[in-house]
C-alpha cells in the first residue's frame, strides 16, 4: 500500500511533515517503510529570471546569464543550452545543490568565466514530463522568483510507502488510513458525499443476472450497470492519485475502479456487458481441466475448485485475481457491468499463489475485505464516472448477498484490559481511546461495556484485540515497565545441554575452534566421503522445495560439513585448522517420509597443520595421529569417561591402518584417525587431515556425573625404567597391558617414553622404553619391593610379548 500525502489532504488537514506523519503512524502500528519525496534533491533549486544574456567570449555555443534569484544581487551562470532567452523564468540549481540526477553543483569557471550554479533541464530534475523542447525547463511567466522550484513544479508532494501487517486490512484504503491519520494528528477528517444520479431509467436487474453457486467462496456479489460509456483518459488529478498509489493509468473506467479500490479498499472489476454471453455472471468453482482465457491472453487450465466468474457460456475470469479476456473493457465498449464482490481470503490466496499473480486486488482479498463496502464502492465509481461525463447510470444495484455477517459485538471491562496491559487507565480515558477506532460503545452494567466493532475492522474479535487497540493508541512507550512476580521456576538447562557445553569448553581448551555449518547436504557428498553404497547414511531426508540444487537433503553425518570447512580454509591458505562441531544429524524412520526423522546429536571434528603455531623459534612439526589421540584421551579424561578399550578401528572415511576406536564393551564411543586418501582427494585436501566422530548421547551415557579428586601421596614413590626389545609388529599397547596386569599392588602407572627402531637395533625389532612407578599409600616403599615387582613385570613381558630386556 502506498498513497500520496496530497490524496490524504483531500480529506484531512495535515500540518506536519510527511516524515513526522510517517513516524507517528509507525508508532500506532501502521508502519511506514519509506517516505518518497518528489522533491528529493531539489532543496537548493530555486526559480530565477534571466535578466541578461551575453555570448561567452571564448565559446560559440555557451552563454553567460545574469540571473535574478531574488537575492538582490544578480548571479552569473554559464549555460550551454540553446533554448534560453532573456526574461524567461527557469529552475536554478544553486551552489551546493545535490540534484536527483546525481549532479553536484559547485562554484567554478567554464572556459575562464565564473559560473555560480546551473540552469536545469527536466531530465536533471527527474521531472516526469514529455519535453517539448530540448534544453532548460522553462517555467510559466507568472512564476514567482527566488522561491523553491519544487513547489512550482508540482513536486512538493510525498508518497508514504506502508509495510502493513497482515491484520490491518482496513489500512489498505485511503478511508482506513484517514482514521489512523486522525488518531495521530488529532484532526477530524471529512469523507466525500457519495451520491449517484441514476439517469438511465431501465432496471439493472432486468439487464444482468448475478448468481453465486459457491457461497463459501463468494459471500457477496454486487453489480451496477453503466451505459453510453465514453472511454478516454481519466482526469489529471486522478492520474496523479493513482501514480502516488503506484498504479498505472489505463483509461477512465479502469482508473475509476482502481481509484475506488484504493480509496475504499473494495477491489472492483469492469466487464464489457456486450461480451457477456447470456448477460449473466455467476461465481462458481472451476471444474478441473476447465479452460480459462484470462485478460493477459493466456489460456490457463483450472486445477478445479478455484473461484471463477462465469457468463452463460464459460468462465470469464479468476475471481479477484485476473479478469477474463473476452469481457475485458476495450475501445468498443459502450455498456459496462461493474463488479464489487467479497471473496474468501484463503481461496484467493491459493489461486493467486498457484498462478503466481499478486495484484493490488488479490492482495486486498487475501487480507479480507469489508463485506459492507460493495454498494458504497459501486456508487462511488458511478459517481466519479458520471462527474467525468463518461456514462449514464442504470437504475438499481443487483446485490446477491447470501452470507450475511452479524456485526462483531464485544463485551469488555476496563479492568480486564488494564490487567492485560499492566496499566491503570480510568474508564473514561479507555472508552475515549476505543471510540477512536469507530463503533458504538454502550455501558452494559456498572463494570461491563459493549462495543459494536466497525465492520472494516475484521481483525478485532475478542477483548485481547481491544487491549491492543488501547495499548497502541495510548502508546506502548507510556506503559510502565515491570518485572513478573509470583510463582517462580527453577532456572536450568537440560542435562544434555550442559553436557554439550562441557564438550565445547574442553575441546576449545584443547585448541580446537568451534564451527557451525549448514544442516543441508548433497547426494554427491556420500560418494566423496566414501560411504558404502548400502549404508544407512545414504538414506537422507529430502527437502521438497530446496533452496537450490546444492542442498536438496538434510545431513546424516557431520563429517561432510567439517571437511568442507577444512577445504575452504585450505583454499584461503589457512594452514593450521582445528575444528569441531556438536550438532544433530537426521535419519528417516522410513522413506518416503511419513514421520518426523530421528535427530541424533553428533560430535565431529578435524585437525591439520602445525602442532604449534608458526613461530621464529619452533620447528614446524605437523600434527599426526597421536596429536588427535591425545586430544581424544584428554576429552575423555575431562568428561570422566573411564575404562574404555582402545582398538583398531574401521571407518569408511579413514585410513584403514591409522584408525582407532574407543569402546565400552561393543559400544563405540568415538572413532578417529587419518582421513582416507581417497576422501582427502575428493574434498581436494592437499595436506594430511585427522578426523573424529562420536555420538554425544553415547558419550553422555558413560560420562561420570560426579568427579572426586584423589589425595596426593604422603610417601615417596620409586620409579624404574624398563627398556625392551620387541618384534617390530608388537603393539605398544599390548606390552603396556601386560605391564599393568603384572604390576602388583604397589603399581602406580606406566608411561612409554621412547620408541626406537634403526641403528643398533636388529632388523624386525624395535625398542620400547617405559617408566614404571611404584607407590605405597601408607609407607615408604623399599627398593626390594620395587625390584620384586619389576622382575615380575620383566618375566611377564618376556613370556607374553616375546620381549627381551635391553641392558
Amino acid at each position, binding site marked *: 500500500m502506498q498513497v500520496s500525502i496530497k490524496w490524504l489532504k483531500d480529506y484531512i488537514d495535515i500540518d506536519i511533515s510527511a516524515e513526522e506523519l510517517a513516524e507517528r503512524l509507525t508508532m500506532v502500528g501502521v508502519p511506514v517503510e519509506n517516505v518518497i519525496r518528489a522533491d528529493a534533491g531539489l532543496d537548493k533549486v530555486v526559480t530565477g529570471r534571466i535578466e541578461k544574456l551575453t555570448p561567452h567570449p571564448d565559446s560559440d555555443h555557451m552563454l553567460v546569464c545574469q540571473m535574478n534569484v531574488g537575492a538582490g544581487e544578480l548571479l552569473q551562470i554559464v549555460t550551454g543550452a540553446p533554448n534560453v532567452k532573456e526574461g524567461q523564468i527557469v529552475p536554478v540549481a544553486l551552489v551546493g545543490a545535490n540534484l536527483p540526477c546525481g549532479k553536484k553543483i559547485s562554484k567554478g569557471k567554464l572556459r575562464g568565466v565564473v559560473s555560480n550554479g546551473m540552469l536545469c533541464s527536466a531530465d536533471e530534475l527527474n521531472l516526469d514530463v514529455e519535453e517539448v523542447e530540448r534544453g532548460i525547463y522553462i517555467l510559466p511567466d507568472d512564476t514567482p522568483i527566488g522561491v523553491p522550484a519544487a513547489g512550482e513544479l508540482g513536486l512538493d508532494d510525498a508518497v508514504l510507502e506502508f509495510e502493513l501487517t497482515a491484520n490491518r486490512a482496513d489500512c489498505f484504503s485511503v478511508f482506513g488510513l484517514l482514521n489512523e491519520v486522525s488518531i495521530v494528528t488529532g484532526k477530524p477528517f471529512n469523507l466525500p458525499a457519495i451520491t449517484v444520479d441514476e439517469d438511465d431509467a431501465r432496471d439493472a436487474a432486468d439487464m444482468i443476472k448475478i448468481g453465486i453457486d459457491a457461497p463459501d467462496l463468494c459471500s457477496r456479489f454486487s453489480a451496477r450497470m453503466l451505459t453510453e460509456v465514453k472511454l478516454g483518459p481519466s482526469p489529471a488529478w486522478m492520474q496523479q492519485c493513482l501514480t502516488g498509489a503506484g498504479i498505472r493509468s489505463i483509461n477512465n473506467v479502469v482508473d475509476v475502479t482502481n481509484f475506488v479500490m484504493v480509496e475504499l479498499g473494495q477491489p472492483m472489476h469492469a466487464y464489457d456487458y456486450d461480451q457477456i454471453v447470456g448477460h449473466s455472471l455467476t461465481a462458481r468453482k472451476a471444474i478441473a481441466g476447465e479452460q480459462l482465457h484470462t485478460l493477459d491472453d493466456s489460456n490457463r487450465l483450472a486445477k478445479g475448485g478455484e473461484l471463477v466468474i462465469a457468463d452463460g457460456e464459460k468462465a470469464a475470469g479468476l475471481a479477484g485475481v485476473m479478469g477474463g479476456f473476452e469481457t475485458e473493457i476495450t475501445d468498443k465498449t459502450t455498456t459496462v457491468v461493474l463488479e464489487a464482490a467479497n471473496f474468501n*481470503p484463503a481461496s484467493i*490466496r491459493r489461486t493467486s499463489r498457484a498462478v503466481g499473480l499478486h495484484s493490488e486486488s488479490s492482495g486486498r482479498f487475501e487480507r479480507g475485505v469489508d463485506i459492507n463496502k460493495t454498494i458504497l464502492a459501486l456508487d462511488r465509481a458511478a459517481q466519479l464516472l458520471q462527474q467525468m461525463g463518461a456514462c449514464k447510470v442504470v437504475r438499481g444495484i443487483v446485490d446477491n448477498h447470501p452470507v450475511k455477517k452479524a456485526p462483531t459485538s464485544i463485551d469488555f471491562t476496563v479492568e480486564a484490559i488494564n490487567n492485560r496491559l499492566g496499566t491503570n487507565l480510568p474508564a473514561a480515558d479507555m472508552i475515549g481511546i476505543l471510540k477512536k477506532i469507530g463503533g458504538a460503545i454502550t455501558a452494559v452494567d456498572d463494570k461491563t461495556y459493549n462495543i459494536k466493532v466497525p465492520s472494516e475492522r475484521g481483525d478485532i474479535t475478542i477483548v485481547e484485540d481491544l487491549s491492543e487497540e488501547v495499548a497502541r493508541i495510548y502508546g*506502548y512507550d507510556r506503559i510502565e515497565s515491570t518485572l513478573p512476580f509470583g510463582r517462580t521456576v*527453577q532456572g536450568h*538447562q537440560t542435562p544434555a545441554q550442559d553436557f554439550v557445553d562441557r564438550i565445547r569448553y574442553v575441546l576449545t581448551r584443547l585448541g580446537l575452534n568451534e564451527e557451525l555449518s*549448514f544442516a543441508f547436504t548433497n547426494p554427491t557428498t556420500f560418494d566423496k566421503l566414501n560411504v558404502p553404497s548400502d549404508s544407512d547414511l545414504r538414506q537422507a531426508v529430502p527437502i521438497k522445495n530446496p533452496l537450490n540444487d546444492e542442498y536438496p537433503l538434510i545431513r546424516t553425518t557431520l563429517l561432510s560439513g567439517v571437511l568442507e570447512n577444512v577445504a*575452504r580454509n585450505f583454499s584461503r591458505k589457512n594452514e593450521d585448522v582445528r575444528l569441531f562441531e556438536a550438532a544433530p544429524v537426521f535419519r528417516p524412520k522410513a522413506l518416503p517420509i511419513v514421520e518426523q526423522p530421528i535427530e541424533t546429536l553428533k560430535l565431529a571434528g578435524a585437525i591439520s597443520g602445525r602442532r604449534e603455531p608458526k613461530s621464529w623459534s619452533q620447528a614446524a612439526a605437523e600434527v599426526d595421529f597421536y596429536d588427535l589421540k591425545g586430544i581424544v584421551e584428554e576429552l575423555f579424561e575431562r568428561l570422566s569417561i573411564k575404562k574404555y578399550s582402545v582398538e583398531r578401528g574401521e571407518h569408511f572415511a579413514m585410513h584403514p591402518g591409522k584408525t582407532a576406536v574407543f569402546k565400552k564393551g561393543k559400544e563405540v564411543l568415538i572413532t578417529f584417525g587419518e582421513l582416507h586418501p581417497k576422501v582427502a582427494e575428493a574434498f581436494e585436501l592437499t595436506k594430511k587431515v585427522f578426523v573424529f566422530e562420536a555420538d554425544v548421547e553415547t558419550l553422555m551415557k558413560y560420562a561420570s556425573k560426579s568427579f572426586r579428586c584423589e589425595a596426593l601421596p604422603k610417601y615417596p614413590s620409586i620409579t624404574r625404567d624398563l627398556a625392551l626389545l620387541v618384534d617390530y609388529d608388537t603393539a605398544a599397547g599390548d606390552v603396556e597391558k601386560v605391564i599393568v596386569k603384572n604390576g602388583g599392588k604397589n603399581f602406580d602407572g606406566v608411561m612409554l617414553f621412547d620408541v626406537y627402531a634403526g641403528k643398533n637395533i636388529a632388523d624386525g625389532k624395535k625398542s620400547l622404553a617405559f617408566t614404571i612407578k611404584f607407590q605405597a599409600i601408607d609407607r615408604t616403599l623399599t627398593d626390594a619391593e620395587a625390584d620384586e615387582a619389576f622382575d615380575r613385570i620383566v618375566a611377564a613381558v618376556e613370556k607374553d610379548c616375546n620381549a627381551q630386556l635391553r641392558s
Partner: protein
Amino acid sequence: MEEKILSIRRAAREAVSSDATNLKELDAVRVRFLGKKGELTQLLRGMNQLSAEERPKVGKLVNEARAEIESLIADKTAELKSKELADKLATESIDITLPGRHAHAGRLHPLTLTLNRVKEIFLQMGYTVEDGPEVETDYYNFEALNLPKDHPARDMQDSFYITDDILLRSQTSPVQARTMERHKNNEPIRMIAPGRVYRRDDYDASHSPMFTQVEGLVIDKGITFGDLKGTLEYFLKQMFGEKARMRLRPSFFPFTEPSAEVDVSCVMCGGHGTDCKVCRGSGWLEILGAGSVHPDVLSMSGYDPSVVSGFAFGMGIERIAMLKYGVDDLRLFYDNDVRFLNQF
C-alpha cells in the same frame, strides 16, 4: 708497635680499595692481612715478646685493626658481588621484541558466545532452557501458534517442507507449544528455547537459509504487557550495556496480542548519528518481536486463558552477534574461516 699496626691498617685500606677489583683479588687481600701467615696474624704471633702491660693494649689495637679490615672486606665483597651480578645480567640481555610463543587456543563460535550470554541472562532470571526437534510438524510450527493453513501471515516465512505436514522448523516457537503441553494445571512457565531454524531465504550478507533463534515464554497468573517491557528492557541492558534504550512499535503476530517489534538504540551511534551506517540514521535497530500470548495459543496447549496470561518473544542470535561484534556480513558465521573464528 702501634706504628706498625697503623701502617698495616693503612696498607689494608689501600689494598681493599685499589688492589681488589674482583672477588679473587679480594680474597688475596684477605689472605695477605688476615690469613694464617698474614701481616696481622704475624703481628699477633709476636705478642708474647711484649710486656704484660703492653700486651692488652696492643691486643686491643690488633683486634680493632682486624675488625676494621674484616668490615672493609665484607663491604667490598658485597660491592663486588653486586657488580658481578650486574655484569652477568648485562650479558644475559635478550631481544624482548621477538614475538611470544603461543599455543593453539581454541575458541567458541561467536554465535555460541552470544547465545551463552543470552542464556546466562535468562537463567539468572530463573528461566529454563528448553529444546525441541528441528524437523517439526506443521501443527507445532504453525497451527498451535494460531497460524492455520492459508493464513496470510504464513507468507512472512517461506519454509522448507519435507512433506505437506513435516517441515524444517521456521522458528523456535514450536518449543513453546511443546513445553506448554508438558505442563498441567496452569503451572507457571519461564522458558527460553534457543536453536537452529530454517527459512527459504537466499544466502546473502543479512540472510541465511539456516540461522539461530531464541524464543522466550512466560506464563503465570497476572502477567502483563508491562512485564514483557520490563523483562526485555532488563535483557537489552544486560546484553548491550546500561545505556541501551528500548522502543516498542505495535506490530502483528498471530500468536500474540498485543504484539510489538522491539528496537534497541543503535549500538554504534547510541541513537545520535544521522550518518550512522548501522542504523541508517534512524537511531534504532530492530532486535526482536514480542507480545502478550494470544488466548487461543494458551488454550490450544492446555492452559486456561481466563486464569493465566503470558508473554512471548523471539530474537535472532546472528543479528545480535553482528551488532555486538561489529560483523557486517552474516555469511562469516557459517564460513568458519579460522582467521575469523580466532578473533573471539
